[in-house]
């Protein structure tokens, strides 16, 4: 749990501008909270979707391979059924089931990885104690900066945030 300074902006441009200025002055920007996707902002703050991509690839291909194995095993080994003298291992008809189920499981694995990467579900988070948090899902842009250790440094940070256009500044935990 870190003590942070929250700054609320009315426009995304002001938020992005503030992040640039804070970084130039070596402040640690922890996160931003926005009512819609601001392209490139998540990557700028260091988020990586690698787990989601990897989980979807592994989950989808792994499931597809397992499905194919079940088809081969059941058709060629467990229950060889002669249908018009066709080969038991009728591989040209096998891809449909692995494809359909593989796509589904890629989605399931990806969803699980998304939750894992974001730490959700977490219904009770210190962020929600901040009075400013509610507007972030509606129409305001919120910035969370690691609070400096001294009061003087915090005042300097607040001054800088105000200069970059922050409408409201407050403290909280994240």
């Amino acid at each position: 749990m870190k003590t942070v300074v929250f700054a609320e902006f009315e426009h995304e441009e002001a938020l992005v501008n503030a992040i640039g200025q804070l970084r130039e002055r070596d402040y640690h920007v922890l996160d931003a909270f926005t009512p819609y996707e601001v392209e490139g902002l998540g990557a700028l703050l260091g988020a990586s979707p690698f787990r989601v991509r990897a989980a979807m690839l592994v989950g989808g291909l792994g499931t597809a391979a397992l499905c194919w194995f079940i088809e081969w095993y059941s058709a060629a080994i467990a229950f060889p059924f002669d249908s018009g003298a066709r080969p038991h291992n009728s591989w040209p008809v096998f891809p449909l089931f692995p494809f359909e189920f593989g796509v589904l499981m890629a989605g399931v694995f990806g969803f699980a990885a998304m939750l894992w990467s974001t730490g959700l579900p977490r219904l009770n988070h210190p962020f929600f104690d901040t009075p400013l948090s509610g507007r972030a899902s509606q129409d305001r842009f919120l910035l969370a900066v690691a609070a400096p250790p001294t009061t003087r440094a915090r005042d300097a940070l607040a001054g800088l945030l105000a200069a970059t256009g922050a409408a409201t500044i407050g403290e909280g935990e994240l």
Partner: protein
Amino acid sequence: MTIVADSTGFSNRGTARPDEDWRFTRVNSSEAVNVLVTGPLLDRERWRRWWIALVASALLTVVFFGAMFYLFVEGIGIFGNNSIVVWGFPIANYVWWIGIGNAGTLISSMLLLTHQRWRAAINRLAEAMTLIAVAIAGLMPIVHMGRPLYFYWLAPYPNTMGLWPQWRSALVWDFWAILSYLCFSIIFWYTGLIPDLATLRDRATTHAKRVAYGALALGWRNSARHRHIYQTYYRTMAALAVPLVCSVHSIVGLDFAASLMPGWQETIFPPYFVVGAMYSGFAMVAVLCVAVRWGLRLEALITMRHFDMMAKIMLMAGTVMLLSYATEWFSGWYSGRGADRRFLAFSFAGAYAPFYWTMIFCNCLAVQAFWFRAARRSLPAIIAISVLINIGMWLERILIVLNTLSHHYVVSMWRLFYPTLWDWLILAGSLGFFAFLYLLFVRFFPVVSMHEVRQLVHEETAG
């Protein structure tokens, strides 16, 4: 041009005619979007007409499940199927409903990947349509078989009988296609909802709503870091959905194409089923858009330009359908085979000919009105033609079944199908059940993707 916000959050933007715009130019702030979408959900006063519709649809839902109960007690003898025409209404209903279910994912994924921004106003309600339509479609094969306790035999699992599914059968492919598509659609729809559920949580007027929406939102905090991961997942799902949705209805087409009966040997079936699905689905989306727009007063978000665009897509799909029918007719005639030519003659002049001509009118001719801008911008015309398309597409589904099965190679196996009351009750009941579930969706979930529309409003107003 100036942007002037009034108390409702709307604005008039200079000289543009209101029906010329996407809603993005008429709603000029995030808060205006929030008010429009969440307002009805959090207000208990506006729902009188909704209750009337819910009760009416609930009655039809009772009919649906009542008819199914009677079916499971009595067996499939209550349907019009006979020893020759072994497929009937439930199979046609199945193909029709799953076709309608395809458009939601197409709108959501294909239009997202091709950066068609106008989708944002209608994708949520189209996705909900998909979920419900596919779920109903999934019930229909069980209704057709009449023995719900055995449907799991389609799944591969070790059992004491030593039986495994027959992987060469299109019906087994169907089982997996529907199951996968339904589950995938639920995940895709729910993922898209999460940020909007957080908005509802933060605007909730009662503790119960805050808890309910908060739990459904999974504690979403609108973190930019989370959203980056979320958007990667959502877009990847969209990319996967396109081949999935095409494969699902292609597999439904293969139920018929991978056969030896006259009229069921068409290699064109898979792509033509996909286009037909998109066609009937868009027609249903158009009808739902009109209803939702009127019921929730969303004229500022779903404008005539959306209907114009949907009409153009229906026109394209209807023309492709005409081309597909013509290809089917030509290949039947050009094959020179007696059975195929007799099948063609039976389609155009046989016992079901009036329905066949009605189908051609509904699917190929009525939609040609959309060449005219006046028709594309007229809600009565949109509703009338969309309903005709849905009737035509249902006729296509039933006639694909009946024309072939009533007209075998052997004359002694020519026999007609006569639907019973129970056939009609299942069909009407499924429509009522669809309406019932859709009304529940409209009451409790945001019908427009707020977080995407907010982004578009910003882009429009900033630009």
